[in-house]
């Protein structure tokens, strides 16, 4: 772990490649076999001797009910992901599933995924819906199972350890891309009205809140409107699923992190005719799946993300 963490250690080729996608300054460097990403110019600190103010886990896109060749047993890999969260060595303050809990939104699949989720060792389990959970009935079945205490299509917010967390629904109205809709946008504006500028904001959604690849629906039509209400905050972190692969982008005060899946990989944007499940060579599936740890230490305006491959 001795190599430097200066963002300029990235090769020119990487940077060009990276910038072509991001158009921004999130930078990857390799330190002792780990990939470290941070905003150019900042000084990352990795040592955490004390318990962070907040630490939680994100899992995504379990697609319970899928049985295709890309992963013949998504229930097994989801169980492995849950066990991995339960083996972090601490109890996460909450666990968020960022959608596509089910593959076909059948009552049996909702029942199954709910039962599996309750195997998580954490005080609080949260969810946001994916379009697979809401596509055939505008989310009615989803909300019957997971909608208690939520508003509108299933959105909500809460405060924990000085952090304001907003959980959005952008899969119910799909004109082409994801959409939040007027009612939810108005709610977001009101929701943050009394929150101070230095409060870290975390936004969860299923579909990315940035235009990752609109031709495949990988973006949210009215995300800019929502983010305009969050401009005054010094730190905004958007965590999403949907695209079944890790990706990072920064725009101003907002950093976006797409999560991987516990089920099966999807192609990189534009790679092939459609975002259909990718069947990897034998033995490589687990490397494409994973869980995410996120922690926050008070006074740092910083969240730390750690991606774990499925073991």
């Amino acid at each position: 772990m001795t190599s430097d963490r200066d963002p300029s250690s990235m090769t020119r080729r990487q940077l060009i490649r990276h910038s072509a996608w991001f158009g921004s300054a999130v930078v990857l460097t390799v330190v002792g076999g780990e990939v470290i990403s941070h905003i150019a110019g900042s000084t990352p600190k990795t040592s955490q001797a004390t318990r962070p103010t907040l630490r939680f886990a994100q899992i995504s896109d379990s697609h319970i009910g899928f049985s295709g060749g890309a992963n013949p047993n998504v229930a097994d890999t989801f169980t492995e992901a849950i066990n991995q969260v339960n083996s972090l060595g601490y109890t996460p303050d909450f666990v968020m599933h960022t959608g596509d809990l089910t593959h076909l939104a059948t009552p049996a699949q909702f029942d199954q995924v709910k039962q599996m989720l309750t195997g998580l060792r954490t005080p609080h389990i949260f969810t946001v819906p994916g379009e697979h959970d809401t596509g055939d009935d505008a989310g009615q079945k989803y909300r019957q199972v997971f909608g208690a205490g939520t508003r509108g299509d299933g959105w909500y917010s809460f405060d924990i350890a000085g952090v304001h967390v907003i959980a959005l629904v952008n899969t119910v109205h799909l004109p082409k891309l994801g959409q939040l809709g007027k009612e939810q946008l108005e709610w977001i504006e009101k929701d943050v009205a009394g929150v101070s500028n230095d409060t870290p904001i975390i936004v969860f959604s299923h579909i990315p809140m940035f235009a990752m690849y609109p031709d495949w629906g990988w973006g949210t039509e009215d995300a800019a409107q929502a983010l305009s209400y969050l401009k005054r905050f010094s730190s905004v972190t958007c965590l999403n699923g949907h695209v079944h692969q890790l990706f990072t982008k920064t725009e101003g005060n907002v950093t976006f992190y797409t999560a991987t899946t516990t089920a099966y990989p999807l192609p990189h944007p534009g790679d092939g005719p459609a975002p259909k499940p990718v069947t990897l060579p034998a033995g490589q599936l687990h490397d494409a799946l994973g869980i995410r740890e996120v922690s926050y230490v008070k006074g740092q305006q910083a969240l730390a993300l750690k991606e774990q491959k499925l073991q």
Partner: protein
Amino acid sequence: VSIRSWAAPVATTAAVILLAGCSSSSTSSSPTTQPSINFGSQASVTPGMPGMSGMPSASGNAPAASGSSTTAPATPVGPNAVSIDNFKFAPQSLTVPVGTTVTWTNNDEEPHTIAARDGSFHSPALDTHQTFSYTFQAPGSYDYICSIHPFMTATVVVTK
């Protein structure tokens, strides 16, 4: 060390990602108990649900998903059939006389729905090889999409 921006995060055992200005000195108070959650209202029902507490790790012994009964033995052929391959409806535009029953078959590994833009019909999510049928009782042009992948669009034209 050279890495590829796409491959890197999944190609390593652990990718540590840090963000935002970390320059401020941290107050090193270390809470030992888990922080509480404030949902900001006095509502008795709150979002989310509790997980297991203090229990050893569990393996979710979940029931197997039940199958659906609409699996078709083979792709329908004929003038009243629409197939779905590679996230595309084929044919893109189908013209049929009024009273015709049109059958869609999903040949993708991904589920799709058939949803009229005017709301007149909406299938459940069709898994691989499942079908959906709808009988058109009135002439007109019916634009429809897959409500899971709304970039998939097509039309049924119903003539008198």
